[in-house]
């Protein structure tokens, strides 16, 4: 479980996160939703410590993460897997080497054991026969899946995904979403997903947090959304005419 208490973050020219608190639960996919530019990526980077917060506390399983020194932070980071918006695969390494990278860096296992684990992870995300390819040679959806395999290689307790389905077609998006949800439940990970995709919200949102203009504007489950009367949230989620019809049908 991860808890955020009153965190704020500003850049020299603007306040991006304004006094946000939330609780991210284990074994669930916690969705952070909001428009482009609303600060989702910054929030995620603050939680994992790639950006420093100006104030507030970030608590991982009762440990206040943002007060730790570099070395102790590193110990927690080894339990974190992260899926970046573009995949962020190392482009000088093959698919297989990408997944093996964290294993080689942080375990003392033999090459065979690492290879075995890497292949198990790749198989878990349905990548077969692409082990020797380079990231530039595979499709966007495959890159995301390889990135998931790399993120779970060390069996993380926390998984962060920044817009896992941006740039993917609807069908591939749903496959990626479901994969994330399955993995979350299978390994009882605390998963945090940034998205502005309404399909994902409905498909996998165990817990949904809506960020509007740097503040937390709404929180609930995906089924609560259909009943919600928060105007900003409805404008955002049910932006298209089709979606508006669905909403009026349910409420």
């Amino acid at each position, binding site marked *: 479980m991860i808890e955020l208490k009153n965190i704020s973050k500003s850049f020299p020219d603007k306040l991006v996160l304004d006094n946000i608190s939330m609780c991210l639960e284990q074994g669930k996919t916690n969705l952070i939703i909001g428009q482009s530019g609303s600060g989702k990526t910054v929030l995620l980077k603050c939680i994992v410590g790639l950006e420093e917060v100006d104030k507030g506390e970030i608590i991982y399983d009762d440990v206040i993460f943002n007060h730790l020194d570099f070395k102790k932070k590193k110990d927690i980071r080894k339990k974190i897997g992260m899926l970046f918006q573009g995949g*962020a*695969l190392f482009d000088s390494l093959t698919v297989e080497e990408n997944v093996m990278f964290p294993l080689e*860096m942080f375990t003392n296992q033999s090459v065979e054991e690492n290879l075995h684990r890497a292949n198990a992870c790749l198989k878990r995300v349905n990548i077969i026969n692409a082990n020797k390819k380079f990231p530039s040679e595979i499709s966007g959806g495959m890159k995301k899946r390889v990135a998931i395999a790399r993120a779970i290689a060390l069996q993380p307790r926390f998984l962060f995904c920044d817009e896992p389905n941006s740039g993917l077609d609807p069908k591939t998006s749903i496959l990626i979403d479901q994969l994330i949800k399955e993995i979350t439940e299978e390994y009882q990970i605390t998963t945090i997903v940034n998205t502005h995709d309404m399909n994902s919200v409905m498909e996998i949102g165990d817990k949904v947090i809506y960020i509007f203009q740097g503040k937390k504007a709404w929180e609930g489950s995906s089924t609560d959304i259909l009943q919600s009367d928060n105007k900003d949230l409805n404008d955002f989620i049910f932006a298209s005419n089709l979606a508006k019809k669905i909403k009026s049908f349910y409420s």
Partner: protein
Amino acid sequence: MFKFLVQLGRYYIFLSKVFAKPENKKIYYRQIIFEIIELGVKSIGIVAIISTFMGAVITIQTAYNTENPLLPKYLIGLTARDSLLLEFSSTVVALILAGKIGSSIASNIGTMRVTEQIDALEIMGVNAASYLVLPKIIAVVFFNPFLTLLSIGVGLFGGWMAGILTGIITSQDYIYGIQYAFIPYYIGYSLIKIVCFGFIITTVAAFNGFYVKGGSLEVGQSSTKAVVYSSVLILFFNVVLTQLLLS
């Protein structure tokens, strides 16, 4: 001026990250071998070609400038040798390498920054600055002296070829000249310089790439900056080192 001091401070902090203790020696070792091939072995061709021509040009120019019957012919060989040893095979080779490996290091690391590969490393708990840059520094500092020695050898050969083919000097005179009043310390001077220049090229280029913000446009700009800054620094430290080592 203030901006310059801030940059200098950031550069220093960057270096302290780069020289942190490696997480996993085996992987660093593998990276070093990889970088020696990428940054060192793959520069052999260009260094060899340019040195041949420079040796040839120095020989021909010296011959025209010393067309005085009172001056012995072997002076041509001697001048070619000392030009190569003192300036060409260290400073000029370093400038060429700043263009070749400096821009490649900056764009390589800059691309990793803007595509979040560096963030991915940091998240895993890897010290990205050290993992990406230290092997490059070690590889270049280790391999550059060989490039300089190669440049000296090939340059002397180019001078000899030019001398013979144009008929401005006989083989005996040239070979006598390149041995005449030889000061072995000049080789040491040349090697010390290339090692320092190699350090400048790799760290300045990596520093520029590492802190890129934005997209591919900024990556391109950072690699241009890397070449410009490291070239200016090379020329500046050339003066400093020459003063320190030769006077």
